[in-house]
């Protein structure tokens, strides 16, 4: 059985012409599996909304194809696609009540009145808004409007639900609540969710898989763990979480730093020999020991920044490279370090990633 819900094949989208042309999507190919919570993550202007609008049918691709359940839907107008959107602005109909908003899609599909009513009730129960069914949408709070938008998009039971930064207008507490809520809804309905955000934490906690985008291109697709622990390039490594970047040369199957230390790294092939690469290390993977311990890199403490649970220790290697270590703040609140102190720095083999470019 085919388990692919949506597929973009070499999707290209350019806006404008000539000198003013913007390539919002640059040859994007991605497959999204049925029933999966897929997140598009990337900085502002990287083309997330554009990709979503291509799938919804609001924009026509300049090149490439969009497939739904294996069928080419590139030329289908939005009202013929079994795909619904939760808009960032909610876009609720102000002249209709909450229940009428939720029932709108089914009504447009010419479903029998009884079915529209029943489904509307079920959807309102799902988002816990039964009590507000008769209200005008202008009389709702932001969180409630959000739920109406969700119920409205879920009611016609689309094959895919598109969510464009649906939580960005909510305050932090409500946002956390809605994150859990969204996961629950996705679980209960079994519908494929494509979720857009530029909040990496949101992406990491909610998604089955993440597609990291930058400048109209997909940089990496993988599970949150994959993306975090094995970023393929510098952009991904710095956009999701923080990373230290160290230049190195591959010598005899190990990465040699400017300071002369060799680090064991995984996944090298003989052709890599002699290549200049960038290593990425997460700050929480940097361990500090006494300077004279074996197998450590000597570093000088330059600065200590206290963050509550963590303390960030800025270190300088002998070749002038900077490394940040994130240390758990001890109960006493004093890490036992001082500026100017010489320490030993240890990087676990699995913690060091060799980046492409």
């Amino acid at each position, binding site marked *: 059985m085919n388990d692919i819900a949506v597929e973009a094949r070499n999707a290209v989208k350019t806006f404008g012409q000539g000198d003013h042309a913007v390539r919002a999507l640059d040859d994007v190919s991605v497959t999204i599996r049925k029933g999966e919570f897929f997140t598009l993550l990337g900085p502002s202007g990287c083309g997330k909304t554009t990709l979503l609008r291509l799938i919804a049918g609001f924009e026509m691709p300049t090149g490439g194809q969009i497939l739904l359940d294996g069928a080419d839907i590139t030329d289908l107008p939005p009202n013929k696609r079994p795909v619904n959107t939760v*808009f960032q602005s909610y876009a609720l109909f102000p002249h209709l009540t909450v229940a009428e908003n939720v029932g709108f899609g089914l009504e447009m599909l010419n479903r029998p009145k009884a079915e529209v009513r029943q489904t509307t009730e079920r959807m309102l129960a799902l988002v816990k808004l039964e009590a507000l069914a008769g209200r005008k949408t202008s009389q709702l709070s932001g969180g409630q409007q959000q739920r109406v938008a969700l119920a409205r998009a879920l009611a016609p039971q689309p094959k895919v639900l598109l969510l464009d930064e649906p939580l960005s207008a909510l305050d932090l507490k409500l946002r956390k609540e809605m994150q859990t809520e969204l996961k629950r809804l996705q679980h209960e309905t079994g519908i494929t969710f494509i979720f857009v955000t530029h909040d990496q934490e949101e992406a990491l906690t909610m998604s089955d898989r993440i597609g990291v985008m930058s400048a109209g291109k997909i940089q990496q697709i993988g599970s949150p763990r994959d993306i975090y622990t094995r970023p393929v390039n510098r952009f991904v490594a710095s956009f999701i979480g923080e990373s230290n970047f160290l230049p190195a040369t591959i010598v005899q199957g190990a990465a040699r730093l400017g300071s002369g230390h060799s680090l064991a790294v995984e996944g090298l092939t003989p052709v890599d020999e002699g290549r200049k690469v960038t290593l990425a290390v997460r700050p929480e993977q940097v361990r500090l020991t006494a300077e004279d311990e074996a197998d450590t890199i000597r570093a000088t403490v330059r600065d200590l920044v206290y963050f509550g649970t963590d303390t960030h220790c800025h270190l300088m290697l002998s070749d002038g490279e900077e490394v940040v270590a994130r240390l758990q703040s001890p109960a006493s609140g004093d890490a036992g370090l001082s500026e100017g102190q010489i320490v030993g720095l240890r990087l676990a083999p699995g913690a060091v990633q060799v980046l492409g470019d």
Partner: protein
Amino acid sequence: MSAAEDAVRAANTRNAWALVTPALILLTFAASGPLLIVLVYSFLTPGQYGNVEWIFSLDAWIGILFTKDIFDETYKLADAHLTIFWRSVKLSFLTTVITFAIGFPTAWFIATRPPRSRALWLFLITIPFWTNLLIRTFAINEVIRNEGLLNTFLIWLGVIERPIQIVYTDVAVLIGMAYVYLPLMVLPLFAAIDRFDMRLLEAGYDLYASRWRVLRRVILPIVKPGIVAGSILVFVPSLGAYVTPRVLGGGKNMMIGNFIELQFGQARNWPLGAALSMTLLMIVMVALLFYVRAASKGSNPHG
């Protein structure tokens, strides 16, 4: 609520009244006063050379619908009057429909232009208001009359052999009124469409509505206040139109306005003219009442 707040509120109310007083005085004397005089006149007897004699009579009111047979003194339904009423209501209604049919796409077009060119389009829409109504109406006459621009052009093209008789028909009156009142429809529609959140269109399409259903189920209900305002602004003055039916409709295709003028002029029957004026006012009020009722049914009071 504290005493201080109460005092402030009371002062605000006083100020508000002080501010509306001039308007109230003007309304009383300029609108209600004359109206009262017209009402009184409609219950008097016509004077020999116009004006009125101060003798109470219901003849004017009866005369609106009935004519007294000069031989046997029986009353008969005044067909001619009814025809004029009917034509007035019909032409005004059609004018409203035509201005809406033309005005809605126009207003939509303007509202969806970039803000800078929008001002220019609105300005162009108001150009007809710059010249006197009479001159504008004669200009239309010039276009549609038998030897006018349109007929000459069509004959030159060979589309027709002899001129089409447009002027002095109801069609001419309709063309004239639609032209004259179009801006009154476009402007409130524009204001409503300008406030319309275009993102709702995408929400509509996304939820399986066709273009037609998005128009019917999303756009029209939301811009309804503009449609109501525009329709009232066109229908009411159309009903009382005087210049346009006079110039383009000729003497035969009278509307209420011309008929009233006739009573105050040649017919020298001021009370009948006054009673007709009051009738016109009542038709307008009843029409508005029905219309606003129907329009506000199930719609959002905040627009």
